[in-house]
């Protein structure tokens, strides 16, 4: 089955992979350079899209990585000296062509990719320990192929790496034995309480994150300056733990939310809000509502949600895609005439940004920094 990726939104660094660096206000096909030819077929199903400030990584179901956008800091696992400072369309990362991956995450100007045999590869620039390579390593620009591996033998011994979530300056992984480890910026205590110790403000290497009474982490989400963990303690009680800077009283609001392990689907974050999604596909949002980031009342019933930096996306019936929140770069599409002025940057309703055509199915959506990606499967015709 052929797969296409459609993109809209902010594109100053070629992060949409559409060949130029102009923003897009409606969904256009991303392009793929495969064996020297530019095409619109991805060549396989995309299982994850990870977005940095101005770069994008695609993980395919077969374990290969594709990249587009800024490589100025070698954040595309490609030496900026040997390749180029921008990938204008998506292309295979040659230095990684022999490796297979299972998870990927992007921060502001860096990337983290986990191989199927649990090696953690990092590339790019991070002055706050983002690369996890130990003090004082802030860049992989000097490395031969523009990337390095974090020495982390613990992963394989503890059930492998199962989940990764990153914010712009920190990363958290969860291992098969349930443990969560994090590294990067901890200035706001988003990984763990610094207890006033200056040394703990930057976490230069993967570090075990501990919770009272050895509670099990069911899911977690990283926003820009805070993290939220959903835990089950030994008595079976669900707890919500907020760590980091709380400008919006999210910690208190979450505390009052009743959650049940059987009904929780996942927790996701924009940069300044968190969104709890339950198996009945209802969503509860907490945090900054400066641009209607809090999920608006809908007359649609989504099957899936994804968050971008300050906007949200959802799919309805595998056919339609809607967006809400801050849409200044076109990432929420354009207002329909009757709704709002064209130049209003806030979408306080679910705006339709894509409808599948004949023989098409919307497989997935992904949100980045004012970017939206829609994956569509087409029946062979």
């Amino acid at each position, binding site marked *: 089955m052929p797969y296409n990726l459609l993109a809209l939104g902010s594109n*100053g660094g070629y992060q949409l992979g559409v060949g130029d660096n102009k923003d897009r206000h409606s969904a256009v096909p991303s392009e793929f350079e495969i064996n020297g030819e530019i095409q619109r077929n991805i060549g396989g199903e995309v299982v994850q899209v990870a977005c940095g*400030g101005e770069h994008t990584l695609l993980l395919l179901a077969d374990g290969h990585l594709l990249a587009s956008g800024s490589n100025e800091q070698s954040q595309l696992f490609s030496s900026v000296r040997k390749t180029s400072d921008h990938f204008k369309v998506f292309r295979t990362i040659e230095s990684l062509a022999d490796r297979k991956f299972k998870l990927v995450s992007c921060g502001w100007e860096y990337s983290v990719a986990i191989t199927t045999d649990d090696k953690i590869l990092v590339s790019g620039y991070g002055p706050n320990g983002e690369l996890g390579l130990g003090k004082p390593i802030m860049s992989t620009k000097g490395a031969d192929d523009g990337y390095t591996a974090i020495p982390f033998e613990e992963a394989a011994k503890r059930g492998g790496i199962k989940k990764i979530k990153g914010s712009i300056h920190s990363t958290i992984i969860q291992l098969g034995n349930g443990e969560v480890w994090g590294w990067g910026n901890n*200035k706001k205590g988003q990984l763990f309480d610094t207890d006033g110790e200056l040394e703990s403000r930057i976490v230069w290497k993967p570090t075990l994150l501990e919770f009272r009474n050895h509670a099990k982490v069911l899911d977690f989400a990283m926003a820009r300056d805070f993290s939220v963990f959903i835990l089950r303690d030994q008595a079976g009680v669900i707890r919500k733990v907020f760590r980091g800077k709380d*400008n919006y009283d999210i910690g208190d609001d979450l505390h009052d939310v009743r959650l049940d392990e059987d009904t929780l689907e996942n927790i996701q974050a924009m940069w300044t809000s968190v969104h709890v999604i339950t198996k009945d596909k209802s969503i509860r949002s907490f945090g*900054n509502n*400066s641009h209607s980031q809090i999920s608006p009342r809908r007359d649609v019933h989504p099957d899936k949600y994804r968050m971008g930096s300050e906007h949200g996306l959802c799919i309805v019936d595998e056919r339609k895609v809607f967006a809400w929140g801050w849409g*200044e*770069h076109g990432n929420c599409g354009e207002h329909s005439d009757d709704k709002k002025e064209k130049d209003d940057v806030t979408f306080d309703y679910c705006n339709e940004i894509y409808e599948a055509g004949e023989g098409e199915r919307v497989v997935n959506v992904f949100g980045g*920094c*004012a970017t939206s990606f829609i994956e569509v499967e087409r029946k062979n015709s």
Partner: protein
Amino acid sequence: MSEQVSIYDQIEIEDFTFDEELQTFSYPCPCGDKFQISLGDLEDGENIAVCPSCSLMVEVIFEKEDLQDFIDQVS
């Protein structure tokens, strides 16, 4: 402030990156670009950092004495 501006968020000065050459503080904007404000503007009492690519603005949280280290760096 005489007119009400819409502020997206508040950010402490310690979270900004300082560029000595440009004498400018910057911090990531959710559009992929960066909020910016110059050291001179902060010295003059300005506290709103703007993004060159979009309309978002953040309020810089700082005390006057926080600036001295940066003034020393550039002089």
